[in-house]
């Protein structure tokens, strides 16, 4: 039997993985878990309080919003949007950022200069404004949200990874690989990528947390998925008007966002501590 890898022994990683596993199950099995149709309006029972308060309706465990929609069902279905965006946006940003970072760091010279300047110009736009502008241009919809987040956040990967690639590029084993006749492609994939992979994975899990927040921001201002798809940011926006009568309507989605982001971040932090060779090496010495 193979020993359990070091990173799986970290409590942070385990906590993060458990949270994400639960959230993923919720998203996948949403139709079976949700007590009601998330979009069904019950105008007869609007703003009912959650179960533990007086006057609750057992049909709606966490109460209803101002249109009489079930909060719990909307939260459960909202997980789908949040996780879809988190995974696809993070993977997309990682792929673009990592490819450009490896090219820039490996080849250096004018290629590096060009990519570096593009990243700098890109970074000079405030990210939330940039994503809003993109959403206005692209129109609402799940695919466009993912695209907007990718286009805003790939620079983060590119920057951080590039410096790591440069460090590895100067190692003698990369020169040795060239001497035995490795192609550039093989040198990058076999010699450099294994070294940058821990950082890549770490960055990706952190990026997922960021994507959840950006999606919530966009859907809060109604620039994300359409109003027919429940999303956490939308729920916060809807609950604003009745903040005093039904504070729980606001608290529930905020709590959901908090849990999801916490899960991604603690996973990322745990991975960083156990996988990042720079950290593990300094701790060992």
């Amino acid at each position, binding site marked *: 039997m193979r020993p359990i890898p070091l990173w799986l022994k970290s409590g942070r990683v385990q906590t993060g993985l458990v949270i994400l596993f639960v959230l993923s199950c919720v998203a996948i099995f949403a139709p079976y878990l949700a007590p009601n149709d998330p979009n069904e309006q019950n105008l007869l029972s609007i703003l009912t309080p959650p179960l533990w308060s007086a006057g609750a309706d057992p049909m709606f465990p966490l109460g209803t919003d101002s249109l009489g929609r079930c909060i719990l069902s909307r939260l459960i279905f909202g997980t789908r949007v949040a996780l879809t965006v988190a995974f696809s946006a993070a993977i997309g940003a990682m792929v673009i950022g990592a490819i450009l970072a490896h090219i820039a760091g490996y080849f250096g010279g*004018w290629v*590096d200069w060009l990519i570096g300047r593009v990243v700098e110009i890109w970074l000079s736009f405030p990210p939330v404004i940039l994503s809003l502008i993109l959403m206005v241009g692209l129109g609402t919809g799940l695919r466009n949200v993912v695209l907007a987040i990718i286009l805003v956040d790939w620079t983060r990967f590119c920057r951080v990874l590039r410096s790591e690639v440069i460090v590895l590029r100067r190692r*003698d*084993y990369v*020169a040795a*690989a060239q*001497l035995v*006749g490795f192609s550039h492609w093989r040198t990058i994939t076999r010699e450099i990528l294994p070294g940058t992979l821990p950082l890549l994975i770490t960055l990706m899990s952190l990026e997922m947390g960021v994507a959840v927040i950006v999606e919530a921001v966009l859907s809060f201002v109604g620039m994300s998925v359409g109003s027919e798809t429940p999303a956490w940011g939308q729920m916060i926006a809807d609950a604003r008007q009745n903040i005093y009568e039904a504070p729980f309507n606001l608290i529930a989605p905020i709590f959901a966002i908090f849990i999801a982001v916490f899960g991604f971040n603690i996973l990322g932090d745990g991975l960083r501590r156990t996988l990042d060779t720079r950290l593990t090496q300094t701790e060992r010495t």
Partner: protein
Amino acid sequence: MSNPILAAQGLSVESLGGKERFPVLTDLNFTLQPGKILGLVGESGAGKSMIGRTISQYLPNGFAVTQGTLKFDGEDLVTMPAGRRRQLLGREIAFIPQEPLSGLNPVLSVGQQMKEHLLRIGLAPGEHWRERALKEFDAVHLPHGAGLLDKYPHQLSGGMCQRILIAMAFASRPRLLIADEPTTALDVTIQARIVKLIAEMQKRDGTAVIFITHDLRLASQISDEIMVLYAGRPAEIGPAKALFSAPAHPYTRCLQLANPTITGERRGLFILPERMPGLRVLKDLKGCRFASRCPNAVEACTLAEPPFASIGANHIAACIRPEATPDIVPPPAVAAREIEAGKMHLSGEKVTKAYTTNWSPFAKRGTFKAVSNVDFTLGEGEFVGIVGESGSGKSSLARLVVGLDTPTSGKISLAGRDVTANNAPDRAYRRDNIQMVFQDPQSALNPRRRIGSIVTQANEATGLNNSTRERMDRAAELLKEIGLPPDAASRFPSQLSGGQKQRVNIARALCTLPKILVADEIVSGLDVSVQAQLLDLLLKLRDEHGFSMLFISHDLSVVRYLCDRVLVMYRGEVVESGRTETVFAAPQHPYTRSLLAAVPPDDVMTEWSPVLAEAGYQID
């Protein structure tokens, strides 16, 4: 005799990690008189640095003094309160670290650090720290001290940083100085100057010095007394000259014979087998710690730890048969070979490489000639050494030869083919004919690949014989040739020692059976015993495969031992070349002369007088 400045009595340091205890230093007894220099010599892991750390009570986690006393001028450093120790450290007891660059704080200017130190040790009334700093810089022969104060460490050379650290160490007129391998990271010529400088300052202030080094020859030149450590226990203690000219402990003798000579008859190297026993083994070891590697070991050696035998005045050795030690003789020298003229594998004509600084369309580009107009040849089976200080262009030349860089001008031909252009067919041709062994084994082996995969990388590149089976078979063959156990193939580089990694490094280069190897400083930074093993391995492999080699090194004695011919490089140019014996016996160029003079002589009775500055040939 006056009171000793430092006296250790029964000093033992143990590692207390977990439930078990491992001995790190065992029963250390020595005294150091004021104004004397004690050389501490041994391989890495012998516990040399641990003594320095015990003095400052800066031991690694889990290490503690478990027995004995260490008295500084009568006060026990081990039991004294931390406050008192802080008063002593940096004032009465000063340190010079191994890595000059990491000894200084990179984000503070030299002046800021000097000021902080001078204010801490206290200035004379009415004295400004600036004047004092300049005075101290003057004493260590640092010209233009005022300009230095505003500089940051990265703007200075290693030798200059080391001088600044020496100035700081001596600023408080300490009574004890601990110099932990202060010259290991430096070039020979700078090493000579730094060592002379420490000796000069030591005489000025009458400071007692503990000089830690792995170089027995250097220690015998500078020290009054030498303590040779083996696995945490002294093997031999004695007056430097007596100890070096007639070592009584087999370990001292073996260390001496493992180091190649710089003058006189060429002799073979004594190969100390294996490695020093680790802490875990030591714990249960009954007999002499050196017995497993000792050529003179008899059965009695493995039964009980040998007591110290008195050899002469103040000269003791932990050996039961010290009279047998002179019987250890070096193997005969490798016979000098005649290289047939005309059979040239590799040649270069007026090879030049100019580097441009950072690429940017806006910045003005500067150029810098790393290699300029170098001519060289390498015959079949010939070993050619390239020597010079750092920055002389040795490594740049190596990169040009193997094709990691393309020359700006000139011509390189390899086995009858012009490979100057370094295009794809040239590179493929090079791959089968020339390979490189890299300097730093840490950086040369991908930490995420297994050894078996590293040594057969060439198969992966060509796609020939690339099945797992074939690669494992080839790896097993290669590992056998370089003397590693077959199970090493499935290990990762981090599980090997420095010497073993360097062997893997050589095996990778040999995989395609190239005609030429280029070795860039492959034995620097290794212990003399490991160095001797590797040099021996190279000679053995040459006999089997008949390759030729460009051997780059700053260590002249190693080049003298190994190479048939030698090129001396200075600032990108070859200033002298010829047969090794001729060049070393009668150097023509002043730079070669100063390089040779910087090496401590083999005979301890010979006065070591490094040429400190010959007109026009000085780096630093």
